[in-house]
């Protein structure tokens, strides 16, 4: 009794290894590809599989930081507006005579600034939930984009700029390579650094995290700033793919991004999740979209499929995995039933 050891490592076993959410996602991903290849004989080849990624990867840059945000127990619905605002600032500054590299830098700076603004309000006004803060800034950022560009489109970018979304090196799209680098970086940041551990700790128990000396405010601000920066990246690639930008671009992205993160097995109550799940979810939804496009099915079916997948995945997570995810201390349940556990003298 006097010697108690707490093991950080979970016991490793085959059952535990295969009994993971990510394997289910891998199965779904394979199923999607099998269905796609039966739908169209031209689908299943390397060029098509890799080449099609540039049709959906721009949104994927938001999925990475959103995973951090949701693990923190927050939510950020302003990301799509941040994308629109930074894209608009980039296009307008370029057309006002700024050199393209400067415009690109400005795009990333504006994105980061939007994220910082969100983070600072969240930290200074802790009583407010992140939903309401980002709801307000979502309207404001999109509003600023409309003030700047009204209902015009802005484009005429230099030719090399379209390489971002359309270019490829040895048949591998440039955007896929950038995304791979970002995914690895975010994975390492989340799972291999003290910053990542702090994010998990705060998602599990914010008060305990603060009392154990974590500078919780700076973590929140840093995660939000990172989200803004990645929104800037999404703006770069999205604008490059479309060739021009308008204030209403990326409408509804925030909800798709949140859906992907949740489908990836990240708990919306915070504190648990891995970066691999959301990344798999990006490819599942992306290929699903691409395959439905091959057979001329409209995007409406995809809406229904994504919605159903979202609800089903949370349902399964709640029923199957939910019980052991956050084991409550034994006393807590007794208190919840109205019994106070007796103190042992």
């Amino acid at each position, binding site marked *: 009794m006097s010697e108690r050891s707490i093991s950080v490592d979970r016991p490793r076993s085959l059952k535990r290894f295969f009994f993971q959410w990510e394997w289910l996602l891998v199965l779904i991903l394979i199923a999607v590809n099998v269905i796609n290849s039966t739908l169209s004989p031209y689908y299943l080849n390397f060029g098509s599989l890799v080449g099609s990624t540039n049709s959906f990867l721009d949104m994927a840059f938001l999925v990475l930081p959103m995973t951090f945000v949701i693990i923190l127990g927050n939510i950020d619905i302003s990301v799509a507006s941040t994308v629109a605002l930074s894209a608009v600032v980039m296009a307008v500054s370029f057309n006002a005579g700024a050199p393209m590299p400067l415009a690109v830098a400005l795009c990333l700076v504006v994105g980061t600034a939007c994220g910082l603004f969100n983070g600072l309000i969240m930290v200074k006004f802790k009583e407010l*939930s992140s939903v309401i803060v980002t*709801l307000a800034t979502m309207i404001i950022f999109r509003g600023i984009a*409309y003030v700047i560009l009204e209902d015009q489109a802005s484009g005429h970018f230099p030719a090399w700029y379209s390489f971002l979304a359309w270019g490829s090196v040895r048949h591998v799209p440039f955007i896929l390579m950038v995304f791979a680098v970002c995914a690895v970086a975010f994975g390492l940041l989340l799972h291999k650094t003290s910053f990542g551990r702090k994010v998990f700790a705060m998602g599990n128990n914010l008060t305990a995290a603060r009392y154990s000396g974590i500078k919780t405010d700076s973590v929140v601000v840093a995660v939000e700033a990172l989200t803004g920066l990645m929104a800037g990246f999404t703006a770069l690639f999205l604008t490059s793919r479309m060739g021009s930008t308008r204030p209403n671009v990326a409408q509804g992205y925030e909800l798709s991004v949140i859906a992907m993160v949740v489908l990836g097995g990240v708990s919306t109550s915070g504190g648990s999740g891995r970066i691999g799940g959301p990344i798999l979810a990006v490819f599942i939804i992306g290929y699903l979209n691409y395959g439905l496009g091959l057979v001329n099915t409209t995007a409406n079916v995809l809406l229904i499929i994504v919605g159903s997948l979202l609800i089903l995945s949370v349902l399964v997570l709640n029923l199957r995995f939910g019980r052991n995810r956050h084991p409550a201390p034994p006393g807590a349940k007794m208190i919840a039933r109205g019994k106070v556990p007796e103190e042992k003298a």
Partner: protein
Amino acid sequence: MSGEMIKGTARARVIRSGEGFRELGLLVFIAILCVAFQLRNHSFLTLANIKDLLDNTAILGILSVGMTLVLITGGIDLSIGATIALAGMTSALTGMVIPAINPLLSILEGMAVGLVIGSVIGLLVARFNILPIIATLGLMNIVRGATYIESGGAWVSSYQMSDGFKALSTGTTLGVNNLVFIALVIFVLFWYFVNHTKTGRRIYAIGSNPEAADISGIPRRRLLWLVYATMGVLAGLAGVLWVSKFASAQGDTALGYELNVIAACVLGGVSISGGSGKASGLILGVILLGMLNNALPLINVSPFWQQFIQGVVILAAVLTNVAVKRNNIRLALRKRAI
């Protein structure tokens, strides 16, 4: 012991007066805006424009009542824009096939569609413990997709609707526009429900402390279901009225409108973390948002500035709310200091 109790009531009084202060502040803000708008454009405070403003705000008001109930329980409903579209589209399509259908039946049909959607959400939230934001996000996609499929991507236009159907939103009851009349009835019912019925008070209880509500024997799951089902029914009703008012049913009707509704509730002092929100504040919040929509074009503000101004007003209202609450708590603590 008695001293403690006195201080307790003193604190309660301070906080309660703070809540009253909130509504007073909102009222003063609305009054200042009215004067400012009137100075810029003398047609703002005319009977015709006020009637116009109320007509255009009624649907927002109907929806905000349902959303307030949901927010009080600590939930959120993002699916109502889609529910409006599906309910409106369904009733419009039925009206196209059977032009002689009684408009009241159309309303019932829309409400039934809303009830089904709301019940599913309620079931997911109450029975399967899915976070409301996720459950309603999923349903939003499904319902929006269903709307497009049901209509085949086509619109139902004004000439395909019967006059009786269109008269739903243009006719009057007791001298008031039907929409405004329905919204007023719903507001009165809401006020009575949350203030004077046991079920209404229990909804606050499950919002402010779910565990305590469970322990004291409140049927939390059933009430949660009730709240989402009510929201669905109101969204269905609003859908039919929306289609009747704009005389057009489209796949993307009311896209993103849920955020306007949430904004109106937040402006009206409904807390998004649950447990608080009053009918009086809500009606002021709805009117404030309606005024911003109505008056900014009147005073020649470019339509492209509207969204920005709305966002700033919402953020300012929310932040002021926090500042006032903090001040109240500090005052209360100072009174307790020995």
